[in-house]
């Protein structure tokens, strides 16, 4: 239940996440003054602090974690690059030592040919235009071009790199991507009972699926796309039916 007049009816959500209420841009969330207010709070996306008042900047659900992190959860389709997020990109251009990768943001990201596992100037691996890359953003701020890498701090791939041929990539809205990015996601586990598959989810709303047979991939794609209009619980039963129908 949601109280419309900003009352404090708070629901407990999984993982200690609390959903407070629906906010619109300009709504006052709480007053906070670092000098006088007790304790510290953390502001996540969709909130801004101005003149001692925390206000919403996006329309969505105001949520709060037990560690006093507040943020606004929105349903949006446009990806805004954030540092440390895992994304799926498409190679669009080659420029000397770097590749341009489309990650769905306002600007294309760059990736150096050296930022792959075991890459050196001698063992250079050529990427073709149109290749899919799963990687992490190490630079993403409003003043700079985003930069991607496919290695972690210890030069290990950790699952990142060029996605192999034979899979299918499609786009979903960002909240669906956030929903299924959890490897323990109950919905994905339900699907795995019926069919064996590999799935890669980028925070930029791109999902890549690979299964042994083409029609299995199509079935999986349709199942995941159902989440756009249903909650995972609702989609569970329907997805199983779709899988049975399409995988004959």
């Amino acid at each position: 239940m949601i109280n419309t007049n900003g009352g404090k009816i708070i629901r407990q959500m999984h993982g200690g996440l609390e959903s407070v209420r629906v906010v619109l841009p300009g709504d006052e969330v709480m007053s906070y003054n670092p000098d006088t207010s007790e304790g510290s709070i953390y502001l996540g996306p969709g909130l801004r602090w101005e003149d001692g008042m925390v206000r919403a900047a996006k329309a969505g659900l105001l949520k709060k974690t037990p560690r006093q992190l507040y943020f606004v959860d929105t349903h949006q389709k446009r990806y805004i690059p954030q540092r440390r997020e895992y994304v799926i990109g498409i190679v669009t251009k080659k420029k000397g030592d770097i590749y341009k990768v489309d990650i769905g943001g306002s600007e294309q990201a760059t990736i150096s040919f050296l930022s792959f596992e075991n890459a050196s100037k001698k063992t250079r691996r050529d990427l073709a235009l149109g290749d899919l890359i799963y990687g992490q953003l190490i630079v993403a701020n409003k003043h700079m071009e985003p930069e991607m890498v496919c290695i972690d701090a210890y030069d290990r791939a950790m699952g990142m790199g060029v996605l192999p041929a034979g899979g299918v990539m499609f786009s979903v809205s960002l909240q669906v991507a956030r929903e299924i990015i959890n490897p323990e996601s109950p919905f994905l586990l339900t699907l795995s009972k019926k069919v064996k598959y590999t799935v890669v989810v980028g925070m930029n709303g791109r999902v890549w699926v690979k299964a042994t047979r083409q029609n299995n991939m199509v079935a999986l794609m349709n199942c995941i796309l159902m989440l756009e209009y249903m909650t995972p619980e609702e989609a569970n039963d329907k997805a199983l039916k779709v899988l049975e129908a399409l995988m004959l």
Partner: protein
Amino acid sequence: MAQHACELSFLSRSDGSALYSIGLNVALASVNGPGDVKVSNRLYNRSHLEVCYSPSTGHSMIRERALESIIMRTVEQAILVHLHPRTAINITIQEMQSDGLALSASVNAACMALLDAGIQMKTTFAAVTCCITPAGTVIIDPTEAEIQESVAEATFVFESSGEASVLTAHQDGRLSYEDFKKCLHQCQVASRDVFAFYRRMTEKKYQNEAES
């Protein structure tokens, strides 16, 4: 007041869209962005805004260009444009049906579409049109016929935060200062209902998730 209705995410391909109707006036707004921008429009400190208005019949003429400019200047004030430098936000408005309130319907549609797209904004905004009859009474959300018979018509856009802050004022016909204030006041009262409507629509959009 006329009946307001709105459907969010009406278009599947755009980042945000809204079909908004006030009585018999219907406008469809679509928002794309923050996205790629032409080099000539690239601004180093803020995002570039583009508004495109197409009428229900005929080609875009001077009237439409003037409406585009009014909507652009209004929206510009509400969006936090400096958050996304070197990007563009495109707002496309299609007038579907008009009965005198095309401007209000499109401004409100634009606001709902921006909310749907998750664009960061300072505040929401709502437009209200009124007209004043020869007898001096103010009609909120008039029909085309009522506007034709009136002495003056006025459209105001208010922002939700702050007390009675007017973003845009646009009038046709002569208004005395007393009448102007009367119109402004009544439109402002009516705008509260519009803001409440925005909230209801947004709550409806997030209803499923809030309950799960």
